[in-house]
Structure formats: structure tokens, C-alpha cells
């Protein structure tokens, strides 16, 4: 295997020498029998299947449960690289919370003209119900999963700030467990920073944001849309690991100004809800009246300080793809510092000049829906056929404000194990960040997603992506 010039490979330099973080791993790997490694990889898959670490794919013929492929070659980040990354993430998350507080209170950033007012006023992700409301502990985003890509030794870009209900942390944890189980010897050679205390920290972090109404030890629950949701495994996993109840909307009711869950011994009040249900479905009395996934009246209880909802409703305004392009300004406005992590240059198709440029250059650009997620509804110009580009151009012209465009980044690669040996594939990284009144905690590493198809840049699990264990070395 050789690295190619176009893309930065995190393991091998162009001259085929091994980069430092991977040196122990590579010497171990070279000494392994490839047959044995393949058997181990199969074992890992069986383990995932037996444990039912699966996800459902929407809109497919056979919408059964599928495994996310797991690759046994770890993605390794040096301690030095990580400390810069985590400083950048912390800065960004701090700015996002300050932005959310501002946007739902005095809106200083709009008055200062740093973010255009129409972007907020006309945005569905902005919830008027949250204006003037102070979430318990002052925290808006208790859990954030920032998507980061790398293009060079010191070049990191933030691709998306997932400030609503980021998923994938269960894969981060299970991937590590699997690696520890399969290759304990690797962890004796490399000092890899621990991730397994994430659920404990999550619990502590949520408990620290308990509402005024809470007396004693906070009662915490994870709110899931149910067993048919694509991330149900993760919901039950996190509830289990935190020792919290896993509830659905119909288990909950508002009683005496509290949100209470129906137990075998009657209704018991809840203090903190880690909800994995979108804003729209949270409260049929406030948002979508047809929602059966939420709790009628929960927003009234929330406003009165009777419950903590994590993340707070309305955080979507901070990770909206149109807002994204203003993140450098937002960071500077609230922290007084330059952003440590770069933003990907973004054309807002709502602006006429940008739209004209994007239409001209579709074949080189990645175009995304402003409100889309999961890799659905996007165009990867360089990988698309002429027909696909033409079809997309029509969609773009019909609703330009619905799209943003970005250059195709030369995403870094990390090798995966194939039948022909190691082969480079593109990756991204989603570190998980916990925010509480006591501070910000970033789990070292995160979830590495890898595009398994050669040359592909789409890492989403719904589009044929896999995952890797992600190591941060303790140096």
C-alpha cells in the first residue's frame, strides 16, 4: 500500500514510512497472520450481531436490522494533535451555548449585524417558544457531537456541529470494548486514553443540570421514539449504562406540574429527560399536534422549571447549515478569540452571487440541504454522473435557499483491512462533548466513520459507511 499524493494518509507518509502515532501498531500488524486477523474480524461481526448492535435503515425494501461494518484497524491520534483539537472543540461548544442564550434573549449578535436577522427569523429551527426562557443550569446543549475532517498533518475542519441529538456514542464505546476483547496485547503496547467512563460522565453531567423542582438525587430517563427507531439500540444502551429508565412518550404524563413516568407502583416524577426525539415531536400541545412520541404539556412544565430537557428545544438554530457558515464570526463574537478549528468555506445558495457560482461549479462541489442530515439529499459533485448533476441543478434553482455548497475536501485516509491487505479509505471524526454547569468534558477520540468504498467520501452509515475504534494516545 502507498499513500497517494492527493490525500493525507494518517498512517503512511508519501515515501511509505510510518507516521509516529502508528509505529507500534504497524510493527504489531506486520507480525500478525492475516488469516487470524480475518477470523477475528468475523468474530467481531458475530459479537455485534449477537448483542444486536444494529441500526435500522429507513425507506429500504427490507427495513430490517443491519450491522454497521466495523474495521479492526484503529484510527490513532497523537496526544499533541488531540490537545489542539480539543481546545478548538471546547471553544466552539462554548460559543454555541453563548450564541443560543443570546439568540433566545437579547439577540446582541443580530443587533451588531454579525449574523443577518432573516436567517433567524425565517428559520424553522428557531423556536419562538424558547424566547426569554432560561434552561436549568443555563445549559442548552448538554451533548454535542462535532463532525471533524482532516486534510493535512495540522489541518482540521469542522464539517457540522451536531447540537440537537447526535448519535453514535454507543458505537464508540462498543468498538473499544471489541478491540480490548480481541487484541488486548495492543493496549499493553500503546497507552490509549480511556473512553469507557462516558456513560458515568453523561449521568453526572445530566444530574448537574437538574431543575429547581428536583429534590434529592435527580431521576433521569432517556426518551426514545421506540424500538423501530434507527438508533433504538443506542437509546437502550445509554439508559442501561447510566442506570436510567428508558421511556417512550406514552409512559409519561404531566401530573401536578411535573413530568411523571408510569411505574408499577404509580406515577413517579422525573427531573431530567435525555430526549432522543426531535423538537417537533416533543409536545403535541406546543409543536406538531399529531405527534404521539412526545408528552402533552411538557413544554409548560419546562418553562416553569419542573424538568430539564437535554438538549434544550431550539438548539437546532445553532447547527443549522445556513448558520454554520457564520460560525467563525459567532466564535469571535462570544469568545473574543479567533476560531481554532477552521470552517469549511461555504457558499450560501440563498445569495445570488453564490448561487451563480455554485451552478457553474456543481461538478466540483458538495451541495447539502440546509436542514438535511444523514447524507440524504446531498450531491457529491465529483462522484456524480452528468444526469445526477442536471437533476440536482433543477432542484437547486427551484429552492436555492434550501442549499449550501462547499468545496470537495481532500479528506484524510486511514487504512482498512481488505482481502488484499491494508487499503486507504476516507474518514471523519465525531468527538462527543458533554456540557454541564461544572464545565465541558470531551471524550478523548470519538467515533471514526469510514467510507468503505474505494474513493468514496460519504461516511454515513446509512450510505455504506463503517466505523473504527479511535485512539488518542497518552503521551
Amino acid at each position, binding site marked *: 500500500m502507498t499513500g497517494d499524493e492527493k490525500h493525507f494518509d494518517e498512517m503512511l507518509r508519501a515515501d511509505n514510512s510510518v507516521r509516529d502515532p502508528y509505529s507500534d501498531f504497524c510493527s504489531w500488524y506486520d507480525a500478525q497472520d492475516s488469516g487470524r486477523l480475518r477470523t477475528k474480524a468475523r468474530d467481531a461481526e458475530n459479537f455485534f450481531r*449477537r*448483542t444486536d448492535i444494529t441500526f435500522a435503515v429507513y425507506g429500504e425494501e427490507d427495513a430490517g436490522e443491519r450491522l454497521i461494518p466495523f474495521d479492526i484497524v484503529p484510527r490513532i491520534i497523537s496526544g499533541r494533535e488531540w490537545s489542539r483539537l480539543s481546545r478548538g472543540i471546547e471553544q466552539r461548544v462554548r460559543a454555541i451555548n453563548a450564541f443560543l442564550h443570546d439568540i433566545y434573549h437579547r439577540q446582541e449578535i443580530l443587533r451588531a449585524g454579525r449574523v443577518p436577522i432573516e436567517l433567524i427569523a425565517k428559520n424553522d429551527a428557531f423556536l419562538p417558544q424558547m424566547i426569554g426562557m432560561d434552561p436549568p443550569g443555563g445549559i442548552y446543549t448538554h451533548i454535542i457531537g462535532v463532525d471533524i475532517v482532516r486534510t493535512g498533518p495540522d489541518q482540521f475542519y469542522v464539517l457540522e456541529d451536531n447540537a440537537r441529538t447526535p448519535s453514535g456514542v454507543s458505537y464508540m464505546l462498543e468498538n473499544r470494548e471489541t478491540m480490548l476483547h480481541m487484541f488486548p496485547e495492543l493496549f499493553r503496547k500503546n497507552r490509549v486514553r480511556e473512553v469507557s467512563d462516558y456513560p458515568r460522565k453523561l449521568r453526572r453531567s445530566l444530574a448537574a443540570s437538574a431543575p429547581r423542582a428536583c429534590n434529592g438525587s435527580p431521576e433521569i430517563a432517556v426518551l426514545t421514539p421506540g424500538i423501530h427507531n434507527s438508533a433504538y439500540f443506542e437509546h437502550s444502551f445509554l*439508559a442501561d449504562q447510566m442506570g436510567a*429508565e428508558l421511556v417512550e412518550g406514552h409512559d409519561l404524563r404531566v401530573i401536578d406540574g411535573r413530568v411523571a413516568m408510569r411505574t*408499577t407502583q404509580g406515577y413517579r416524577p422525573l427531573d431530567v429527560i435525555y430526549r432522543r426525539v426531535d423538537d417537533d415531536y416533543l409536545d403535541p400541545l406546543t409543536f406538531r399536534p399529531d405527534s404521539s412520541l412526545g408528552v402533552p404539556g411538557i413544554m409548560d412544565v419546562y418553562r416553569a422549571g419542573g424538568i430539564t430537557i437535554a438538549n434544550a428545544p431550539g438548539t437546532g438554530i445553532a447547527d443549522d447549515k445556513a448558520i454554520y457558515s457564520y460560525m467563525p464570526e459567532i466564535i469571535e463574537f462570544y469568545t473574543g478569540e479567533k476560531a481554532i478549528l477552521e470552517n469549511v468555506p461555504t457558499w450560501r445558495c440563498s445569495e445570488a452571487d453564490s448561487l451563480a457560482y455554485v451552478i457553474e461549479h456543481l461538478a466540483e462541489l458538495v451541495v447539502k440541504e440546509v436542514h438535511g442530515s444523514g447524507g440524504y439529499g446531498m450531491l457529491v459533485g465529483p462522484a456524480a454522473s452528468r444526469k445526477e448533476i442536471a437533476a440536482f441543478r433543477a432542484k437547486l434553482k427551484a429552492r436555492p435557499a434550501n442549499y449550501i455548497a462547499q468545496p470537495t475536501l481532500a479528506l484524510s485516509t486511514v487504512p482498512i483491512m481488505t482481502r488484499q491487505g491494508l487499503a486507504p479509505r476516507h474518514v471523519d471524526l465525531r468527538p462527543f462533548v458533554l456540557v454541564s454547569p461544572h464545565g465541558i468534558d470531551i471524550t478523548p477520540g470519538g467515533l471514526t466513520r469510514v467510507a468503505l468504498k474505494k474513493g468514496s467520501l460519504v461516511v454515513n452509515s446509512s450510505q455504506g459507511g463503517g466505523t473504527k475504534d479511535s485512539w488518542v494516545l497518552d503521551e
Partner: protein
Amino acid sequence: MLGKTAGGLFWMQRYLERSENIARLVDAGFRIALTRSAAAEDEWASVLITAGVRRAYAARYDKVDGSSVINFLLRDKANPSSVMSVIEGARNNARRVRTALTREVWEATNECWMTLKEALRGPISDNDLPDVLALIRQQSAQVRGAQSGTMMRNDIYFFAQLGAFVERADSTARILDVKYYVLLPSLSYVGSSLDNVQWETILRSVSAYRAFRWINPGETNPRNIARFMILDQVMPRSLAFCAGRMAGALEAIAREYGGSDGSLELACSLRRDLETANIDMIVDNGLHQFIQDFIKRTNVISAQIEQEFRFYR
């Protein structure tokens, strides 16, 4: 614990128990079909009645033949009580209540589902049937083993126990209900070969053929079998045993919760009645009536449990 979770545990265990009971009925029916081909059709018909699926079967098939019945009972998704349907039901409920299960119990349940889905994928031939039945027994035994070895004896465990024993009580009672006439002295021809076969089937349907022989060496008569199936305190599928376990589980929950609201009382009264009954009285007052009454009382207890512990979804 959430009411929904208690309900999920209850139904998970009912379904697991049912999968075993159905497999056992098929096993007993198959044995008769092999040894007494003349009686086979009647026997399969009564198996369908016992399993409570005669109508569902008739809606799909014109006549009762072994192969159709076996496949209908083991793998037909259109039959809500087929082994495959109930294993899927058990697994879905387990998935719903996964936070209440130990990792071992969840994995055993999930593996049971994966294994049986594979084994019951295509039609089962007579040659494969013994292996398939053994696999069903073995898989559900693994789930039970994981439960017994890893679960705390708290409300989680006892709601599952309630599911198991409500289902088992119902199953044994149905077997008796369909075959009660065989056990009536006035109608039985003691010693005739036909009756021996019938008795044997009843005992095999509850996996107690050998146990009965050990307890009653050389004394096979209908009254003894009825006593054994209804009143025996140590036979794990007798009505008395099931009633005892139901009451015991409800007592344990009442201890944990500091009280009870109706279901415990009903179950204790059922347990007491079975402890104090004797078989002569039961037969004299009407065996059929007695069994019908037992089924009714079990249903009332089950409904009371659902309501009292807020199972509703």
C-alpha cells in the same frame, strides 16, 4: 420500574414458555402419529385445539395432516402462536425491556431468535423434526439458564416468573380440558391399549411420562394421572405447582412494594384451593367443570396483574 417494562417482561416470558409448550405438543403428537397411524389425524386435531389455533388452521388448510400441522405450529407466521411467531414476540419484548435484562439473558434471547429463524426458515420434514424440536428445547433452556444464573431476584425476575407460570398453568389446563374425558373413570376402559396411548400422550405433553412412572410404578390409572397433573406439589407443570409459583411471585413483589392490590389475594386463594382439594372430590364434582373454573380464575388473575401493575402501553 415502568409499568410497560413489567408488561414486557411478563409477555417475554409467556411467549418463551409458549414456544416450549407448543414444541412439546408437536413432539407428543408426532410420537402418536409414528406409533399409531390410525389415531394420528384425531391426535393432530386435538393438538390444534389444545394450542388454541384450530380456527386459524382451518382458515388455511382443508384437511388435518401431520406435515401441515407441524409446519403450521412451528413456523407459520400467520399463526400467532407458532413457535416462530412467539419467539419473535419474546425477542421483541426483550428488546423493549432490554435495560431490565442482564447482558447474558438478552444475548441468549437474541441468539435463540437468530438460531430458530434460521432453523425454521424452510419446511420441516419428518426426518428433520426431532432435531428441530431438540433445538427449540435447547435454545429456550439456554435463555432460562441465563435467567436463573444472572438475574437478581427482584421485581424484574418475578414479573417474568408470573408470565411463565400464567402461561404454563393455562397450557396444562388446556391439555387436560381437551383430554379430560380420557381421565374419567366411567368412560375409560382400564387397560385397553387405546387408553394407554391417550394417557401416555397427556403425560408426554407435559414432559412427565418418566416422572409419573417413577412416582406411580405399575399403577397407571386415570385417577392417578389426574391427581398428578392437577394436584402434585412437586411436578413443575401441575396446576397446583403453577398456582403456587404465581402466588409466590406475587408475594415477593408485594414484599418489595410494601403491599398488594387484589392479584395476590386471588392467587393465594387459588393456591389454597388446590392445596386442600383431593382428586376424588374433583372427579365427583365434575372434572371438566373444575378445569374450566381453573382456566377462568387464571385469566382473572392475569387481567388483574396487568391492571394492578399498569402494563398498558
